[in-house]
């Protein structure tokens, strides 16, 4: 029962996303960026592949994050504001089921989206390099990591959406994405200072999502292999972080008065 309700809510979330014109605009731009990568490549001779991989994967990642944030910020707050929640929560739907349903719906949307963008990316890659090497499988790992990033950023945005306005949620989520992408540097900074600031920065660097570790774009662009343990640990980390964000969202939402 629970599972079926979560599924239906997810599906409806997915349906809402794919019926939204904004999504198509974003996907269109992302594909445009991937498609235009060969043009940049021609500027630097012999670097086509590197530029293409960097640019293409960056496009997939950035547009995915933008979509995640754009849709994520409204997931709960919009339903509260428009009161569509009233007719959902007056049914046998638990609040945590609603949270999970919304999450899986958006995560699914992003997965489908990423699939299409990845197909576009590989098409351009084959077109430019005229071949696919076995080492290109590493690109799939980079894309997998990008999806892990989406899982985390979606959970975070959903969390913000349970208690704050869409605009603030977007700012928070985007800020956290940036800080998280530089979590390594935050840690580096922490090592350079002493005293309370050190502990503060260190603590902060472990609380913010470690997006930096999930970005192996430059590595795969240079055809370096990604260790299997990193794949394992990043997966674990992304799931744990998403779980933490979702349970925080549940905690807030369970106790929220829908005025």
């Amino acid at each position, binding site marked *: 029962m629970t599972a079926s309700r979560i599924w*239906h809510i997810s599906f409806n979330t997915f349906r809402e996303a794919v019926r939204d014109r904004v999504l198509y605009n974003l996907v269109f731009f992302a594909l445009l960026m991937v498609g235009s990568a060969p043009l940049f490549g021609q500027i630097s001779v012999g670097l086509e592949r590197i530029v293409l991989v960097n640019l293409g994967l960056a496009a997939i990642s950035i547009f995915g994050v933008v979509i995640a944030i754009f849709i994520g910020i409204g997931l709960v707050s919009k339903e509260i504001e428009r009161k569509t929640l009233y007719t959902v*929560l*007056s049914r046998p739907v638990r609040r945590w089921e609603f949270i999970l349903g919304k999450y899986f719906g958006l995560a699914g949307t992003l997965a489908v989206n990423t699939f299409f963008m990845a197909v576009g990316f590989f098409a351009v890659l084959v077109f430019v390099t005229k071949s696919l090497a076995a080492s290109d499988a590493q690109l799939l790992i980079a894309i997998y990591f990008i999806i892990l990033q989406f899982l985390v950023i979606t959970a975070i945005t959903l969390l913000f959406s349970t208690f704050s306005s869409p605009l603030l949620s977007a700012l928070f989520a985007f800020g956290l994405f940036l800080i998280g992408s530089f979590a390594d540097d935050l840690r580096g900074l922490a090592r350079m200072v002493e005293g309370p600031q050190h502990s503060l920065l260190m603590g902060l660097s472990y609380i913010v999502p470690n997006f930096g570790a999930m970005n192996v774009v430059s590595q795969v662009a240079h055809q370096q292999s990604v260790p299997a343990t990193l794949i394992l640990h990043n997966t674990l980390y992304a799931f744990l972080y998403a779980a933490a964000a979702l349970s925080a969202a549940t905690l807030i939402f369970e106790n929220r008065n*829908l005025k």
Partner: protein
Amino acid sequence: MNVIEISGLRKSYSVGFFKKTEKVALKGLSLEVREGEVFGYLGPNGAGKTTTLKLLMGLMFPTGGSAKILGLDIDHPRVRTSVGFLPEQPYFYDYLTASELLEYYAQLSGVPAKERSPRVKKMLGRVGLSDVANTQLRKFSKGMLQRAGIAQAIIHDPKIVFLDEPMSGLDPIGRREVRDLIEELHDEGKTIFFSTHILTDAETLCDRVAVLNKGELRGVGVVADLLSSRGATVEIVWRGTSAIASVETLGGKCHVAAEIVRAVLEKSNLDAAIDAVRRAKAELISVTPVQATLEDFFLERIAQPSETTVPAELSI
């Protein structure tokens, strides 16, 4: 048997951004609704009707007191399968078509897959939306949305239906249809709890009503009983251009308009008043008993000062 039992239900909102103040919306409400009745929940704007419904639906949490539906605490998960709810000014997922919307709600309410699509068809027919079954809700008029709202409230065949101002935004025909629908549901044995400030609707539909003002109950009972508690009055009309002093002393204030004078007074003073008109040699036109309406009762009750001091309205 009571299907809804509310006891001492309290709710206060905290308002203001920097300086939080408590706004008491419901002050210890106690109320019972019996199985199978149509119960009207009356009150002027801001009385606390919507607040009560949201508390009963588990959308908000009470500040105090408790409520039971079908013998279970309102936060018990099983309660939700047997209730249907139409929020006030409902707004739905506007990217869905009417039948998708109902399908979705049927899914969430646990209607078995096989039954869903015939049920959706039937409901659309019942609220008169069959023609627009495949139109997205963003293209719906206010009245059509209200109908879709009613349909979603009953799609899962609930035992109790809560309707927050179901007639608002509807034209006279629409109102009539909703009235008929409520009557049908009543005939099917469902309990209907609806809030309104349109008194004629309540008068025609309700077995019992409750009147709420400023978060306090001002009266509950069978409509006829409530009305008969007021003294009967009559209206007397005659031709003339000025008030007759002796009629006015009997308590009938004279209203003069276009050579017609009318006065309303207690039935017991009718004879004396007719005599007075005759003495003035005026032409008597009509004498009609004034129908006591819920409106009179309503206005009378909400005009009473409340025992407790009510904090000044706060604008948010």
